[in-house]
């Protein structure tokens, strides 16, 4: 909300400068978002009179002026404005002045041979609007030589951010009250005019449905002359960002901003019938509103209606039909209370944002309607003349009276700062709280009618699963402490929370325990392992386009956003690989096709907590780095396998028990992908080449491989001490074997057979060569393995070695049909 200082002065006597004012506002919780000092840039501009204007001798469109700026000498000015004439009173700038509208600093000049020692300004050149049709033309009585900013009362505009709990601070008066309570200035009391009713009210209120309105008062003023409102009112409204319309409407805005009390004025002549009803809208009923939009209402919207139908969406926006215009001679002023929750929901339903809604949904002064009506009546009669009718009223003042107790020790006990009890009570009283009872330990105060946020009725939304005894105690705890916390906040806020001494949090141990649990540690380890393997760790959006999700096996309707921000960000991704593939394609489009990207993040398979998987993923695309020692090669599925394996090993998965199956999901190349499994059910990871069709769709120009490790599937490694290491005293010995085997036999079968042949002696088996070529029979490959034999008791004899090797070969042959190559 914005307000000009002159408006604040109407509610607060103060001497403080603007900086102190802003600092105080921010300190007490009314954050200053901006200060616009409209006078400062115009400080050097003075009111000047054109002594004489004559045609420029050398230019048809220019005039040569002699100007008096009140300092006793004459200035020669060349001016192009069509309205520059002898006797005009305008605004002059002297050399050295910065012209805000043009961004130029003025210099003495000579224009077509005529000297120009000053400049006469247009409104636009002063930064005061768009008018550039001519120089400013002031009234005859404008004082020559006075600063223009002072004459025009261009005062400073403050913009504040009011928190949602402080409906009362969405008004100049409310701000003034807080400032006065914080010791800045003295609050001016609101007038309480006495209005003499001259005739019966032409309209009568009726509350048909209490949901629509709880209390309303209204009164007509007849014989009004509606027209532009006075300059001071127009200036204030323009300063807060409103457009002056006519005096009657402007007065309602004066109350909205001045008192935080939105009002509405109906043109009595336009109202059908003699009754204004507060009722719920009928299904399909429409309202043509003042903002030139038509709303189709629902049975949940409260309206103000005449015989013809809805004339206003109560507390939100008035209707166009019954609004006041320059022909209005009799107006009817409405001052009502509406349910904040209904206002909020209706406003949201129809996406109407108005000053009225903003205030009603935050809660208004519950006692103010009659007094506001009187004040508005007085202001209207002052500006537009006329005489007032009797008051029509329906409903009744709500029971807003509440009290709250503050135990002074809670200022320290909750707020961390002791405040002298007299000070604490004085602060509350300055805010409008009335002391009901006070002793040395506590004070009980009545809550003012405008503070709906203090000691409010308690509504809880408790976990239904709580134990009933516990729930009851928790509810009592809230009821016993909430209002007091409200008061602690009020007392501390006025002194500034910055004054509360900071105390380091006591730590109950000298050495803290680990801050992350095993699950988080796994994610951290996976991230570091992948980065150590050359991947660049990424953080990408959790949602992708529906089509993309479908390509990666997702796309369920249950995981589609109802209100996506963009159509390509509407579906929770099944795997981070979907996002990484996009990032890789974007990098390729920038000219960087060779990337290794990783992300440890969410893959969403269902909306249940257990369906939101923690996954460690990599996506490698393009080729390995080119280098003189090892040529670049396209990335391949086994690179991704290595990524997955490295993560699993780092997480302590016993790899001997892990099997690889060839049933990876459809986003992989069916012949170049695999799945790491532990037991028949648990899937630990997928890896492989991205399916070539998908790769093309994604716009990845070269090879692309991916790995996905399901961190939640990795069993928690058992925390036990490591067994002593195996350090045999005898040297191991190694034998190389070349085996001829059918090309479709998985190499892993052969290696497993070799490892399992003689566990007591075979400590390692490594595949060190794979050959497929013309020198071999069709359909065969040669796999060369190195077997490490580890003697434990004594050195092996040649015969024993031969026996073990023969046993290994026999096992391999049995398992795979392989034969020893001669």
């Amino acid at each position: 909300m914005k307000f000009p200082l002159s408006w604040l002065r109407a509610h607060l006597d103060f001497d403080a400068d603007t900086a102190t004012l802003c600092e105080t506002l921010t300190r007490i919780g009314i954050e200053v978002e901006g200060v616009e000092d409209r006078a400062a840039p115009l400080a050097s501009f003075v009111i000047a009179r054109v002594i004489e204007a004559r045609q420029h001798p050398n230019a048809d469109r220019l005039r040569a002026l002699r100007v008096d700026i009140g300092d006793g000498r004459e200035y020669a000015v060349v001016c192009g404005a069509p309205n520059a004439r002898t006797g005009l009173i305008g605004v002059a700038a002297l050399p050295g002045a910065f012209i805000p509208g043009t961004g130029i600093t003025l210099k003495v000049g000579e224009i077509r041979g005529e000297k120009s020692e000053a400049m006469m300004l247009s409104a636009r050149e002063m930064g005061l609007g768009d008018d550039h049709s001519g120089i400013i033309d002031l009234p005859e009585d404008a004082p020559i030589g006075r600063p223009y900013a002072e004459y025009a009362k261009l005062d400073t505009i403050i913009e504040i951010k009011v928190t949602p709990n402080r409906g009362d601070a969405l008004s100049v008066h409310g701000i003034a009250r807080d400032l006065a309570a914080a010791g800045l200035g003295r609050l001016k009391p609101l007038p309480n005019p006495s209005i003499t009713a001259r005739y019966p009210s032409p309209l009568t209120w009726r509350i048909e449905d209490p949901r629509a309105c709880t209390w309303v008062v209204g009164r007509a003023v007849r014989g009004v002359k509606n027209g532009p409102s006075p300059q001071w009112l127009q200036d204030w409204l323009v300063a807060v960002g409103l457009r002056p319309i006519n005096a009657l409407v402007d007065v309602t805005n004066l109350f909205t901003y001045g008192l935080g009390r939105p009002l509405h004025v109906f043109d009595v002549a336009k109202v059908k019938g003699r009754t204004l009803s507060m009722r719920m809208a009928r299904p399909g009923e429409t309202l043509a509103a003042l903002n030139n939009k038509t709303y189709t209402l629902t049975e949940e919207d409260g309206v103000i209606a005449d015989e013809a139908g809805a004339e206003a969406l109560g507390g939100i926006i008035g209707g166009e039909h019954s609004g006041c215009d320059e022909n209005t001679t009799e107006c009817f002023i409405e001052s009502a209370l509406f349910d904040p929750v209904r206002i909020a929901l209706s406003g949201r339903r129809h996406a109407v944002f108005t000053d009225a809604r903003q205030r009603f949904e935050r809660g208004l002064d519950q006692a103010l309607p009659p007094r506001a009506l009187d004040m508005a009546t007085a202001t209207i009669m002052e500006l537009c003349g006329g005489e007032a009718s009797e008051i029509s009223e329906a409903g009744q003042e709500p029971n807003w009276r509440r009290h709250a107790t503050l135990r002074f020790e809670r200022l320290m006990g909750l707020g961390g700062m002791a405040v002298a009890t007299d000070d604490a009570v004085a602060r509350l009283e300055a805010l409008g709280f009335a002391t009901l009872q006070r002793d040395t330990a506590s004070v009980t105060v009545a809550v003012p009618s405008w503070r709906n946020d203090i000691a409010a009725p308690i509504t809880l939304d408790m976990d239904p699963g709580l134990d009933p005894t516990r729930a009851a105690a928790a509810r009592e705890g809230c009821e016993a402490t909430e209002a007091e916390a409200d008061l602690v906040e009020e007392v501390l806020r006025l002194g500034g929370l910055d004054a509360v001494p900071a105390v380091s949090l006591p730590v109950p141990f000298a050495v803290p325990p680990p801050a992350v649990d095993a699950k988080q540690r796994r994610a951290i380890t996976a991230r570091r392992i992948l980065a150590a393997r050359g991947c660049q760790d990424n953080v990408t959006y959790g949602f992708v386009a529906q089509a993309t999700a479908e390509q990666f096996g997702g796309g369920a309707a249950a995981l589609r956003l109802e209100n996506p921000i963009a159509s390509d960000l509407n579906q929770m991704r099944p795997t981070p690989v979907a996002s990484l593939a996009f990032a890789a394609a974007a990098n390729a489009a920038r000219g960087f096709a060779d990337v290794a990207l990783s992300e440890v993040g969410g893959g969403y398979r269902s909306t249940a907590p257990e369906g939101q998987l923690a996954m460690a993923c990599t996506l490698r695309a393009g080729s390995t780095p080119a280098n003189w020692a090892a040529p670049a090669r396209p990335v391949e599925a086994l690179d991704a396998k290595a990524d997955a394996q490295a993560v699993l090993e780092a997480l302590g998965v016993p790899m001997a028990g892990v099997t690889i199956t060839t049933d990876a999901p459809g986003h992989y190349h069916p012949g170049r992908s695999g799945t790491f499994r532990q037991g028949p059910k648990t899937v630990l990871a997928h890896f492989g080449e991205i399916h070539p069709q998908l790769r093309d769709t994604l716009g990845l120009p070269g090879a692309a491989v991916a790995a996905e490790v399901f961190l939640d599937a990795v069993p928690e490694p058992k925390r036990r001490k490591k067994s002593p290491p195996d350090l045999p005293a005898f040297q191991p010995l190694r034998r190389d074997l070349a085996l001829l085997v059918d090309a479709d036999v998985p190499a892993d079968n052969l290696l497993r057979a070799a490892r399992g042949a003689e566990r007591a002696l075979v400590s390692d088996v490594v595949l060190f060569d794979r050959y497929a070529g013309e020198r071999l029979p069709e359909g065969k490959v040669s796999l060369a393995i190195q077997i490490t034999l580890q003697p434990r008791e004594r050195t092996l004899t040649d015969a024993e070695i031969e026996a073990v090797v023969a046993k290994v070969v026999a096992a391999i042959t049995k398992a795979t049909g392989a034969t020893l190559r001669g």
Partner: protein
Amino acid sequence: MSDELEALVAEAKSAMSQAANLRELDGVRVAFLGKQGRLSTLMKGLGALPPEERKQRGAALNEARASIDLSLDQAHGVLATADLNARLLAEKQDMSLPARPIPAGSIHPINRTIEELTAIFGAMGFSAVAGPDIESDWYNFGALNIPDHHPARQDQDTFYLPGTGADGRPLVLRTQTSPLQVRTMLGQEPPIRIIAPGRTYRADHDATHSPMFHQVEGLVIDRGITLGHLKGCLTDFLRAFFGISTLPVRFRSSYFPFTEPSMEVDIGWNRKTGELGAGGDWLEILGSGMVHPRVLANCGIDAREWQGFAFGMGIERITMLKHGIADLRPFYEGDIRWLAHYASSPLTPASLHEGV
């Protein structure tokens, strides 16, 4: 030594000096000291001599042999060095060749910041908690005293998913990590001291807002925890995180539905240069407050016995401030050039003893 032996020794030395390499030198050794070598032959003749001569002759022969051995060793040393030098010269490589590349990976700045703040809060006794991104709106709003009609809960800020959670409430993408505060309060008895770093989502997209971003929230529930502790804890964190022991920290009264009293926290900086710690300007950096009695009650905690504070701050925001990153959007775009510039090494994880 007889003239004959001296001549033999001289001859051997001369032959050694002629040897061009170790192989030729070995030939010399064999010629003189080998089984059939000339000196060996003379040694064999010793046995035929009478005992009185044999002793003298033997001593002379040994002296000659020692002399040849010594010279052989010396010659061997010279030739071996020359040989080695020749080999080294031949083995010369171009040491300006680039080394074999080991691609360098890196840790994203957001994850780095999470490590750092976890280390700092960890030292203050906090443990980190994690949880689902898709939550029922009770965890995200209801339990936190943000009823359906609350102005803080506008449709346009929250992403909704179809269907309901296990509690029958609408599903949302969490807009804050507060659901983890709720889950913690329901899942364990006080005292509680947790931080909840994680992904959050809001339907907002422009230069300074991303539809997904990260937050860290903190929650302390204990006996006797006051606003003073909140201020101390956050001041200690901010100064440690930014590495500025004198960082100005300002606390302003504010409002959040889930805390009371509530405060916004500013740090001192220079708006023009972006330098933190000096300059006289204030920058809002986080929201905080004493946990609202309704939030405690909704989670089954009796506010007469327990009280505490909560806070929340944007991880991207503090990351950008710490590293002078100007633009939010590249955080999520995976541009390898940006990552290479701002990311950190996986081998230097954040730790307090090395300095965060």
